[in-house]
């Protein structure tokens, strides 16, 4: 009996193929998906966009699980043993009968290159995160607890308000912004930031950034931009519900944007990009009637899990067949 490449390596290759297939499928369908997503309520859109960012990773894990499920079925009921149904030379993705085929050198090198590429793409994001945490830690040390619940006050003339921190986010509010906003505008700003804290948007965005490492650069950028906007709109909608008037939140958004330094008119065309477009989207979304909520995402998730369990043997066999093509002859 010969020993083949370890089961973990074959499952890793299967996962990479699943991630690549999901990534290509999303890249090809994004132009059709985007207008459909735009019709959804922002909170739901943000949930779906987060799922799409993580879809290649989820596909990889789901396929690896689907490949292992028939082994578990067989241990519960021997009649379901899939390995007895095909010839010995066929690749086995099985906990009981380890794979006896060796992975071809070319396939191994391509897989290793893909893994290295993903790790290299992760480095700049990791460096940015470490730098951001350092800056935030310094700002936290220099800020004080404000007389507003959950808010840290920064004694600066600069105009800003944000939610900072991955696991235990805080709201930071500058003295400059607080002094220049009307009470209702300040209430809108704080309701928006509290929605970010409740929704854990900073953590969500970071997980999405990790997930899109398995997408192509163009799809990754499009998904993250759409997710950023959806999160902002979801917080605007929560703030509007909290204040009871979406127009007050819209006024606060424009008021804060007006307090920021503006580029000279000659440069404006070159400077105003996503942020200005995002302002328009947020204000018009607040002024439009809210979209109706459709089916709950939980039902979709439950359907996906049931499909995975039922289709596991078919997926398992198809994966074995595809991976056999990559085996050393």
């Amino acid at each position, binding site marked *: 009996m010969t020993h083949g490449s370890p089961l973990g390596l074959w499952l890793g290759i299967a996962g990479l193929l699943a991630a690549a297939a999901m990534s290509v499928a999303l890249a090809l369908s994004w132009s059709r998906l985007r207008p459909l997503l735009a019709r959804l309520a922002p909170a739901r859109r943000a949930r779906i966009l987060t799922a799409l960012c993580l879809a290649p990773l989820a596909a990889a894990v789901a396929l690896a699980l689907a490949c292992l499920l028939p082994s578990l079925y067989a241990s519960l009921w021997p009649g379901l043993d899939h390995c007895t149904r095909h010839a010995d030379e066929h690749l086995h993705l099985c906990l009981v009968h380890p794979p006896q085929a060796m992975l071809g050198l070319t396939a191994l090198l391509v897989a290793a290159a893909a893994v290295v590429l993903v790790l290299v793409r992760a480095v700049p994001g990791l460096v940015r995160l470490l730098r*951001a945490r350092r*800056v935030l830690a310094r700002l936290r040390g220099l800020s004080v607890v404000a007389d507003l619940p959950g808010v840290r006050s920064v004694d600066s003339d600069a105009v800003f308000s944000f*939610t900072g921190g991955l696991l235990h986010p805080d709201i930071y509010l500058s003295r400059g912004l607080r002094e220049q906003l009307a009470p209702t505008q300040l209430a809108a700003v704080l309701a928006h930031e509290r929605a970010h804290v409740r929704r854990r948007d900073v953590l969500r965005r970071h997980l999405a950034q990790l997930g899109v490492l398995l997408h192509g650069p163009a799809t990754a950028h499009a998904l993250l931009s759409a997710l950023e906007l959806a999160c902002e709109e979801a917080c605007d909608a929560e703030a509007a519900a909290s204040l009871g008037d979406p127009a007050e939140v*819209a006024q606060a958004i424009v008021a804060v944007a007006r307090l920021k330094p*503006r580029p000279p008119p000659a440069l404006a065309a070159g400077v*105003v990009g996503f942020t200005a477009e*995002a*302002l328009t989207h947020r204000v018009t979304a607040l002024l439009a009637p809210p979209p109706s909520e459709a089916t709950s995402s939980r039902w979709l998730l439950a359907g996906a899990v049931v499909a995975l369990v039922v289709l596991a043997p078919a997926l398992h066999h198809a994966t074995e067949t595809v991976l056999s093509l990559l085996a050393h002859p």
Partner: protein
Amino acid sequence: MEHLWARGSGDVKSVHVALKARRITLNTVQSTLRRLFDKQLLRREKVSHAHIYSPRLTRSEYHRQVLADVVGDVLRGEADAALSAFVDLAAEADEAHLRTLEQLIANRLQTRSGGAT
């Protein structure tokens, strides 16, 4: 810095004595004071064979400077990876754009108040 703000000035030995509880060496104190001098946080004058160090900034001036540096880092986007801002910290919408948005809101409010009457 805390010691020098409290005492006004001091040489390496006096700072070392004040920080004795931290169990740091005289050399560490000396190099730290030299670095603070290089960063222009301290001034020094030579008296006999020793350098006497004193703060260039008061405690509150120093805190303001540090805070301005950190806020500058935040506004330059150095902390973007770990925050969500109410309006993008780098947002620079031009006047015409803002006026259009204000007009949109005004129209909405006008329509609403018209509908209410």
